[in-house]
């Protein structure tokens, strides 16, 4: 990666936003955040409110997720006779990121990849066999992006599914981990994500098993092991 003016870790062991290496950003979890979700008068318009919704904010990254379903599949041909199908749609609002990060919204491929990752993460966790011939639609909307879109989206999706009363085997929690020289850092912000090898891990806290692991950028095998263990440990603490 290109050299940057940003000092990842200063002499005092603090990161560019004055966090310690293992410190997370300030986080908030909100349930039932869709304005129409709690109760509503669905008038003759036929608009139905989502069955579950949540907004998760981690630092300056904020993601809202709404869940519809289990409901009759919009395309009946997609229905599976013995389980529910999971459909994920990811969107990023145009003003989500500023400056150099604006490139992220370009190219549908990246969002499609995030969507596929979320779908594949939750398919084995949702007890889909309980809802045959139906569809669970997950809509992810990134409201502001400052690194860690995928982990934040996964956390928000877990909460929205719980809010919708859909049966899950367990929570799914996720976090991003970076490595600066030999020092692992947790919950990366956008500038850190650009400069460091990043690993995103999602796991089930009660068993500590990993459902999703994604890494780009070169990294030595031995360092990887260290990061992976750290990530799983940290998630358990959520």
């Amino acid at each position: 990666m290109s050299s940057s003016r940003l000092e990842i870790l200063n002499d005092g062991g603090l990161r560019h936003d004055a966090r310690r290496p293992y410190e997370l950003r300030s986080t908030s979890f909100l349930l039932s955040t869709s304005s129409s979700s709690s109760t509503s008068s669905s008038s003759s318009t036929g608009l139905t409110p989502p069955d579950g919704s949540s907004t998760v904010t981690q630092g300056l990254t904020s993601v809202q997720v709404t869940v519809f379903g289990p409901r009759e599949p919009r395309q009946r041909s997609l229905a599976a006779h013995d389980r529910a199908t999971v459909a994920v749609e990811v969107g990023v609002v145009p003003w989500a990121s500023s400056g150099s990060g604006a490139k992220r919204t370009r190219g549908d491929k990246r969002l499609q990849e995030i969507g596929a990752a979320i779908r594949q993460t939750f398919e084995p966790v949702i007890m889909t066999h309980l809802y045959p011939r139906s569809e669970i639609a997950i809509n992810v909307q990134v409201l502001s992006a400052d690194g860690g879109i995928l982990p934040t989206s996964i956390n928000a999706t877990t909460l929205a599914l719980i809010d919708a009363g859909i049966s899950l085997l367990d929570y799914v929690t996720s976090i991003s981990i970076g490595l600066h020289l030999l020092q692992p850092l947790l919950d990366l912000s956008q500038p850190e994500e650009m400069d460091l090898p990043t690993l995103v891990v999602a796991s089930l806290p009660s068993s500590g098993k990993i459902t999703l692991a994604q890494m780009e950028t070169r990294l030595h095998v031995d360092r990887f092991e260290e990061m992976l263990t750290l990530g799983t440990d940290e998630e358990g603490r959520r």
Partner: protein
Amino acid sequence: MVREIEPPSVQKEFLLAALAESRRLDGRLPLEMRKVDYIFGEELGCVECRLGKTAVLAQVTATIAKPRDDRPYEGFLLINSEIGPMASSVYESGRASDDEVMITRLLEKSIRRTEAVDREALCIIAGEKVWHLRLTLHFLSDSGNLLDCAAMAGMAALRHFRKPEVEVIGDEVIIHSPDERAPVPLAIHHTPLCLTFAYYENLQPILDPIHLEATLCAGTLTLTLNAQREICVLSKAGGTPLAADEIMGVVRVGVERVREMVKHLEEELEKDKSTRVVEVR
């Protein structure tokens, strides 16, 4: 996307029962790859890679372009990988399925983002002229594990390719035809190769799943490694949850495999080189 017909349950049970005894339908060991064959084309930079019955043809071409203003010293590497109906009837041209997006993204991450090709070495005149490489992958036949095959074909093609030599005199650029001067290989930092593992509930993972195995598995994990024991990409998007040491287990296996694969690729490249007569004038 056209929905595939699910394999019959008899076949599924048979496959799982066989796997429980560490046997696979094609007689391989769980962590054995299918036979890899490289077929080098007439032209430099054209390689077909066969992994069992999966086949991918990779072709590298080079043109000269103007670099981006913010990166005046860098050339371009474009990876073109659209899966058409030729590979298998489930792929439609024009509309990308989830699988296809996954393959494209992972190839992009494996080859481009890991800086396998030194892009600064593609510079001819800073801010004016750089080489624009285009790696086109044609997916000829899909019998499982397209991604690994494509990564091998892509890397083989990049290492096989020779760009014409250029000479810069003042502002003038002279491109020598291959007959005049021997073309030069690309500056390659390392050779990342993909390995895909498939997981099943309560069974050991298998390497290089064929199509049927991939359809029936509970999750896959793709690793991109190089011979220097570095993980370039790791992608496990969902699927059955795994413990951390299970992941580390396959990473260790992967490290060994990739070293063998890179060695094999280098031998093949060497063999091909010896058949080509290079005239130096």
